[in-house]
């Protein structure tokens, strides 16, 4: 029994070993190496030397690329907000109104993401083109001024990011909504939970205005116009579609999914450079574009490593705060 018992206790570690070693050697260690490399000086030809004096790489990189860092955070937040606005009603419909077509609807939502990421983005370039299939006819008909454009503006980059990372938001929200026991909502209605008209109107107006103005600022559109649009949308949604049972039962129970989805969307959005490259211009470059060109075009490994390390440290801090408050179960089960 003794030897057998010891073997049984070792079994999980034997099962883990190959995969975990792979992750330690090719995920954990490269992170450490990246930190070391950020203290390098020298070139690929002469070789690199490590010196702590090179901490100035960090201050130089931060001051030089501060606009790109700020832009990444703003675009990431805007794209995450848009993903939430699109995803919540979608996930809600599939979870509560899908009926026997639930799986079909879920599949239809996911299917587009079986196409190549780059080709999807390339398609948006065709769709959003100045005289493309969307705006061309509208301009010809006189609905839009000829100088109107979306491609090569912040709006195109944020729209591309929001589209490409949408499932990261939709699926966690869907999973958390799907878990809700419908009898809770029925019970709330039995206990006279009705529409939430006055409260919904006020809350909708306030939230709509804030979201509209925020997106306006992020996409460098007219903040006042965007705030008014947000106000209008918020009024309609808040007064007509928010019930007390939704506010008190469904929304609180779905919040873990919303938080998980926001984190899982925001992280790749901040680090993205593909959308900014294909859909943007030189004024929309994000930190990912800088890291990529520093690494692959300039072979400026120390600066690139420092920038990546800052990005990674920021995100690890976010994940740590999240895990501390809410645990990782929701993230990994929905991810």
């Amino acid at each position: 029994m003794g030897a057998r018992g010891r073997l049984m206790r070792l079994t999980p570690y034997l099962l883990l070993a190959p995969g975990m070693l792979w992750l330690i050697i090719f995920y954990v260690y490269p992170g450490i190496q990246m930190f070391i490399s950020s203290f390098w000086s020298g070139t690929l030809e002469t070789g690199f030397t490590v010196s702590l004096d090179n901490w100035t790489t960090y201050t130089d990189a931060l001051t030089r690329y501060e606009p790109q860092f700020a832009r990444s955070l703003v675009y990431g937040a805007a794209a995450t907000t848009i993903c939430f606005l699109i995803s919540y009603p979608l996930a809600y419909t599939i979870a509560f109104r899908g009926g026997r077509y639930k799986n079909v609807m879920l599949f239809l939502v996911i299917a587009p993401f079986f196409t190549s990421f780059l080709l999807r983005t390339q398609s948006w370039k065709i769709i959003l083109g100045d005289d493309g299939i969307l705006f061309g006819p509208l301009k010809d008909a006189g609905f839009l001024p000829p100088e109107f454009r979306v491609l090569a503006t912040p709006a195109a980059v944020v729209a591309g990011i929001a589209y490409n990372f949408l499932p990261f938001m939709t699926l966690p929200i869907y999973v958390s909504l799907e878990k809700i026991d419908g009898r809770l909502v029925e019970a709330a209605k039995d206990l006279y939970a009705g529409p939430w008209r006055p409260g919904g109107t006020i809350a909708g107006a306030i939230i709509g205005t804030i979201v509209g103005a925020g997106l306006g600022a992020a996409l460098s559109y007219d903040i006042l116009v965007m705030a008014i649009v947000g106000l209008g949308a918020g009024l309609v949604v808040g007064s007509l579609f928010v019930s007390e049972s939704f506010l008190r039962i469904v929304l609180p129970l779905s919040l873990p999914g919303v938080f998980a989805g926001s984190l899982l969307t925001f992280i790749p959005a901040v680090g993205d450079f593909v959308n900014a490259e294909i859909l943007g211009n030189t004024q929309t470059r994000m930190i990912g574009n800088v890291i990529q060109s520093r690494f692959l075009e300039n072979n400026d490994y120390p600066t690139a490593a420092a920038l990546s390390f800052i990005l990674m440290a920021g995100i690890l801090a976010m994940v740590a705060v999240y895990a501390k408050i809410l645990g990782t179960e929701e993230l990994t089960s929905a991810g």
Partner: protein
Amino acid sequence: MSDNARVDSPIRPSVVLRAGRYLHHNVLYVYTAFAILYLMLPVAVMALFSFNDPPGKSNVAWHGFTLDAWLHPFGVPGLFDVVQTSLGVAFISTIVATALGTLIALALVRYNFRGSATTNMLIFLPMATPEIVLGASLLTLFVAIGEPPFFPTNFITILIAHIMFNISYVVVTVRARLYGFDRHLEEAAMDLGANEWITFWKVTFPIILPGVMAAALLAFSLSIDDYVITSFTAGRTSTFPIFIWGSARVGVPVQVNVIGTAFFLIAVGFVVITTYLQSRANRPPRPSEPAAIKQPVPEPALAAGSEA
């Protein structure tokens, strides 16, 4: 509950209540239809432009219908090679990552051991790290090693990277399937004289196989589509996504749309067929089957949940 601005129509105050009730019942379906159209739009454009007949290289404006690209899908120099490389990377990395990830999932679900929380965190972190950081940190490692087979970066370094980022997704997918696994079945097999090895292959493996297949499909599609990490670890080797990126500046050839559309149709067809076969296999609920086989979340949800 909620709604989108695009469906607010001019409402006269006298009918607000009735209109509200009507909208409340139907607006979500209308909204969902619009949302699905929006999600499908780029795919439709990609497929449409695979039939385009542009005079030059640039395939961004519609010129006319032709089947040329479909009849000669590899009519562009280099395209066949990069598709071959991509398929090779995807096959090998899928097999290795699925094997390693399934073992981890088995350990995590079936055993209580010290360090399981750390293991969970280490599985989760690669999925929560931006791809650019994964690629960049691997490149610094390869540069620091500075000699073959790691530097200059090549096919092997692409494989290393793809296996690394696929492991976590495999673990998460297989683990979802292993929860609720009825261990009495294994005990029964052992009681009937099977040893651990036979029990695993005759009882455990067939039960987890659909989960393992879903994980492999997910790993394959992640691998074949990856551009960001591959761009850091490829060196002079080219894959299909790297080819697309490289040609994006001068104009993506029509043939790329053909191959993209074909990949899309194959992936969708594969998911539809496996889901159909599985639902048919599960339909007559035989009492001998454990409830765990039927999964609340369908395969496509897991398969694409972490895509992009």
